[in-house]
């Protein structure tokens, strides 16, 4: 499955950089897995170059959790406060028990979201999802280069996509379209937006590739230039003006063009929990890249242990693990030192400041990566994009009344 609306972006709480108290109910003493992402299978009919699934996913396709195990996980997580449920993959529709999972989710009071490429979505299944109480479907455009081709040439695959989009709308769901952006399609933003319009999308998320799993392997081929991003943003703004309110477009800028990191996943083990196809429990998608970490598995000790007690979830909670410059930094509660995976992948030290931060002694790695991305030969600097969740749409001063959590930027 694509990572755009997942990753650290799935849980985006409104954070004002100047806010003193930005902890919701969740902080180190009182964390709550508000968001449960169920990566129900790693099987997938597609083969996207930017897929963030683990590169060894093959070994996890044989030992998927059973329907009963998923239902138990849903129940346990709900007891712990989970409320948003993402059903993702691989392609979740390759499992034939999504209907059962949806029904249980509704019973438990989740707001549920199916994240699918649309491959395998039939009238019968979508009706069952609707009847079962699925709240929302997000259609991901995967191999977008091919999709654009199909769109431009109006071939059968595009017709199929159109059919799926219409199916989603006809069942009263909003049409949410999610497109991963990289060097090879960033030049086609206009076509992508036109395609979204033709599909009748209500929301479009354009998100830059983040480099985990397969996309990390492919990063040197995928990373766009700053100039390309700026140009894409300009085209997006133009398009926004043209379509007005009928299609909301989110353009997600990678974080390394800023000088402070994102509060990754809204804080390690604070509000976000992933259960993978084989039952591993993770605080973020890419966490498995970190060295010397043993992640808990629902089959062994269950979710409550995983969240509350497992060494992995406690390791980077709060600020106790920090070293300089973060440990004495007055801004440390704003970003909690950024992304551990980004820190590790770029600096080799998972406990160092996210190098996106200009205060990091390793910040030159980011500057160099940006430099290198301009050099076609050198465009292989290890970089993980962090998507900027663009808090522009929030109105300052609303913090006392409400606290927001966002997936879309």
């Amino acid at each position, binding site marked *: 499955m694509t990572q755009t609306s997942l990753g650290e972006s799935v849980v*985006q709480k409104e954070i004002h950089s100047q806010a003193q108290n930005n902890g919701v109910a969740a902080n180190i003493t009182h964390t709550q897995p508000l968001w449960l992402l169920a990566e129900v299978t790693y099987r997938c009919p597609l083969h996207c170059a930017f897929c963030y699934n683990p590169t060894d996913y093959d070994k996890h396709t044989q030992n998927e959790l059973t329907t009963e195990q998923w239902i138990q996980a849903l129940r346990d997580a709900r007891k712990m406060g989970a*409320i948003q449920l993402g059903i993702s993959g691989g392609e979740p529709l390759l499992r034939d028990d999504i209907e059962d999972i949806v029904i249980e989710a509704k019973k438990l009071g989740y707001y549920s979201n199916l994240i699918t490429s649309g491959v395998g979505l039939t009238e019968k299944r979508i009706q069952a999802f609707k009847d079962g109480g699925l709240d929302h479907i997000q259609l991901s455009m995967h191999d977008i280069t091919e999709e654009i081709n199909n769109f431009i040439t109006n071939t059968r695959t595009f017709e199929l996509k159109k059919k799926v989009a219409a199916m989603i709308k006809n069942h009263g769901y909003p049409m949410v379209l999610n497109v991963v952006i990289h060097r090879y399609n960033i030049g086609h933003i206009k076509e992508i937006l036109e395609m979204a319009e033709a599909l009748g999308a209500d929301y479009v998320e354009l998100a830059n590739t983040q480099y985990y799993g397969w996309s990390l392997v492919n990063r040197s081929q995928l990373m766009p230039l700053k100039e390309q991003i700026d140009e894409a943003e300009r085209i997006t703004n133009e398009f926004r003006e043209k379509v007005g309110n009928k299609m909301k477009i989110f353009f997600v800028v990678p974080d390394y063009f800023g000088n402070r990191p994102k509060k990754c996943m809204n804080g390690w083990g604070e509000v976000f929990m992933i259960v993978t196809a084989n039952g591993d429990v993770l605080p973020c998608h890419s966490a498995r890249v970190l060295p010397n970490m043993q992640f808990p598995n629902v089959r062994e000790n269950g979710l409550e242990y995983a969240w509350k007690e497992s060494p992995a979830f406690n390791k980077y909670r709060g600020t106790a693990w920090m070293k300089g410059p973060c440990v004495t930094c007055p801004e440390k509660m704003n970003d909690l030192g950024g992304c551990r995976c980004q820190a590790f992948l770029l600096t080799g030290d998972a406990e160092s400041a996210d190098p996106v931060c200009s205060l990091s002694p390793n910040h030159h790695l980011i500057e160099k990566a940006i430099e290198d991305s301009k050099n076609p030969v050198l465009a292989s600097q290890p970089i993980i994009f962090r998507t900027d969740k663009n808090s522009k749409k929030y*109105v300052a001063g609303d913090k006392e009344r409400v606290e927001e959590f966002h997936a*879309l930027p």
Partner: protein
Amino acid sequence: MENNIQNSDVFAIALHHRFQWEEAQQSYVILFPEGMVKLNGGAGEVIKRVDGKASVSEIVADLKRTFPDVENIEKDIIGMFEMAYGKAWIRKL
């Protein structure tokens, strides 16, 4: 968006949004595609009354009865309506 709230306006929870009490949060929340809003205290009390039938003035009157000691409550309520409407959590009928 037109944010002006009239006394006679009637609002409902926006499409694809769900309003519910969350035991684990001890608060009301609004859930929507890929996001949620936790409504603290008074905000929850206002949105709880948004049912597609009651007008703004009826809701104000009801809240005044329920919380007779709160000063300036009307201003807060209207402010909450403005924000919720501005953010499209509620829709005008």
